[in-house]
C-alpha cells in the first residue's frame, strides 16, 4: 500500500508554497527535496550539528527534528531568505564574508539563521552571550574565533544601518 500523503502549505521566505508529503517527511528534506531549497544543509540528522537550523515563525529550530506536516501553516525562513531586497546580502552574511567566518561553508546556513535570530533578540551581545548563542552549531573547519568575530561585526553593521 502506498504511504499516505498530506497536503501542506508553508510560507517559505515570504512565498506561499504547497507540497504533498508523507507524514514522516522532515522539514529539512521537505525544503530541500520538495521545494528545491538546497541552501539548508543536513549534517547529522539527529539535532546535534545545527547545520539544518532554520527560522520557524522567526525562532531558530532544527529542521531535521521537525516534521513538515506539523508546521503546515507556519512561516519558515531559510538561508535563501536572509538577503535583503534586490538580493543584497544581509548584515550577518556580509559580516561572515568580511571576517572569514566560513571556510568550506557547510555549516554556514545554520550559523547565519542562528545569528540572525540571536542579534534580533540581543543586538549587542557579550562574548559569553555569543558563545552561548552559537553553542548549538558545530563548525569543523575554521574553529570559532572568526565566527565569533563575525557576530560582533554583524552587530556593528546592523547598528550602523538602522
Amino acid at each position, binding site marked *: 500500500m502506498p504511504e499516505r500523503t498530506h497536503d501542506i502549505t508553508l510560507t517559505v521566505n515570504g512565498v506561499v508554497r504547497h507540497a504533498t508529503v508523507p*507524514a*514522516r517527511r522532515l522539514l529539512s528534506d521537505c525544503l530541500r527535496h520538495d521545494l528545491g531549497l538546497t541552501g539548508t544543509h543536513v549534517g547529522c540528522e539527529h539535532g546535534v550539528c545545527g547545520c539544518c537550523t532554520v527560522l520557524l515563525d522567526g525562532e531558530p529550530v532544527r529542521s531535521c527534528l521537525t*516534521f513538515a*506536516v*506539523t508546521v503546515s501553516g507556519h512561516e519558515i525562513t531559510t538561508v535563501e531568505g536572509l538577503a535583503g531586497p534586490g538580493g543584497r546580502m544581509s548584515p550577518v552574511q556580509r559580516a561572515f564574508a568580511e571576517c572569514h567566518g566560513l571556510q568550506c561553508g557547510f555549516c554556514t546556513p545554520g550559523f547565519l539563521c542562528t545569528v540572525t535570530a*540571536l542579534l534580533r533578540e540581543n543586538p549587542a551581545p557579550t562574548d559569553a552571550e555569543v558563545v552561548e548563542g552559537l553553542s*548549538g552549531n558545530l563548525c569543523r573547519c575554521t574553529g570559532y574565533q572568526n565566527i565569533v568575530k563575525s557576530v560582533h561585526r554583524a552587530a556593528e553593521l546592523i547598528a550602523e544601518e538602522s
Partner: protein
Amino acid sequence: MKPPPFDHHAPRDLGAALAALAEAGARGKVLAGGQSLIPMLNMRLAAPEHLIDINGVAELDTLEAGPAGVTVGALARHSRVERSAEAAEAQPLLGQALRLVAHPAIRNRGTVVGSLVHADPAAELPAVLALLGGSVRLARAGAAPRDVPAAEFFTGPMESAVRPGELAVSAFFPAPPPRSGTAFREVARRHGDYALAGVAALVALDDDLRVAQARVACVGVGPVPLVLDVTEESAGDDWAAAARAVRERAEPEDDIHATAGYRRHLAGVLAEQALREAALEGRANA
C-alpha cells in the same frame, strides 16, 4: 537517518487527542516538541505505528504561575518557560535548570512535559520535579485525570508512569518554602550536552537562618533522579559532610562517557557547590 512510516493524527482539541490515543493504545506515541522523539525515530530506535501530534491543541499551550507554584501545560516550550518572569519568580529552579537544557534552538521546540515523560536519567527537568516533589497530570479518554507524584513518576531509565492511552497534560512544580534557595550545577563534556552528572539543590532556613532542610536531586548517577535528604549532614553549613553523604549513597555505573568512580566524585563536588549556592540564595531571600 529517516524516520519509519507512521500514521499521523493531528487533533485540534484535547478530547480528540485522547480519543486518538485511546484507539492507538500501545501502538501510539505522543508528538509534542519532538526533540527527543524525532532523533529516536531518525535513528530507528522507535517505530510507533501512530503519532498523535498535539502541536495543534492550543489548550495545552499553557503556563500558570502563582503562589502555589508553576503549572506547565503539555505544549509549553522550554524557551517560553525559561523566559517567563512570572515562572522565575514562583519557582526559580525551573529557569536555573532550563538554561542547562540542550541549546536555544532545541529549547524553542522542546517541551517541559515532554522532557519529563522522556525520563532520560541524565536530563535536568526530571531532577527538578523530583527535588521539588512536583507531580504530572495524566489524562485518558473517558476517565478522570490522575496526578502522579514525582517519586512514582520516574520508574526507570527512559521509563515513566504514563500508560498506553494516557496523555501527560501538565506538570506542577511547587513553589519553594519560605527562606529557601535553589541551585543547579552540572558537568557536561560540552555545554548543552547531556551531563555526566548534575545536582539540583534546595536549602531552606529557619528563623535564625540555620539550615532547616537540605535536599539534593542527582542526575546521571542512577536510573532515575536520586533524591537525597542531607539535612542532618548539612547542620552548621557543613556542605563537605553533605557531599560525603551524596558520594556514599549514589550508585552510578560505568559507561563509555565516564567511570562510576568519576561520576560519584562529580556528584559529591557538584552537591557541595549547589548546596552552598542554594544556601547563599536562601539567606539573600530571607
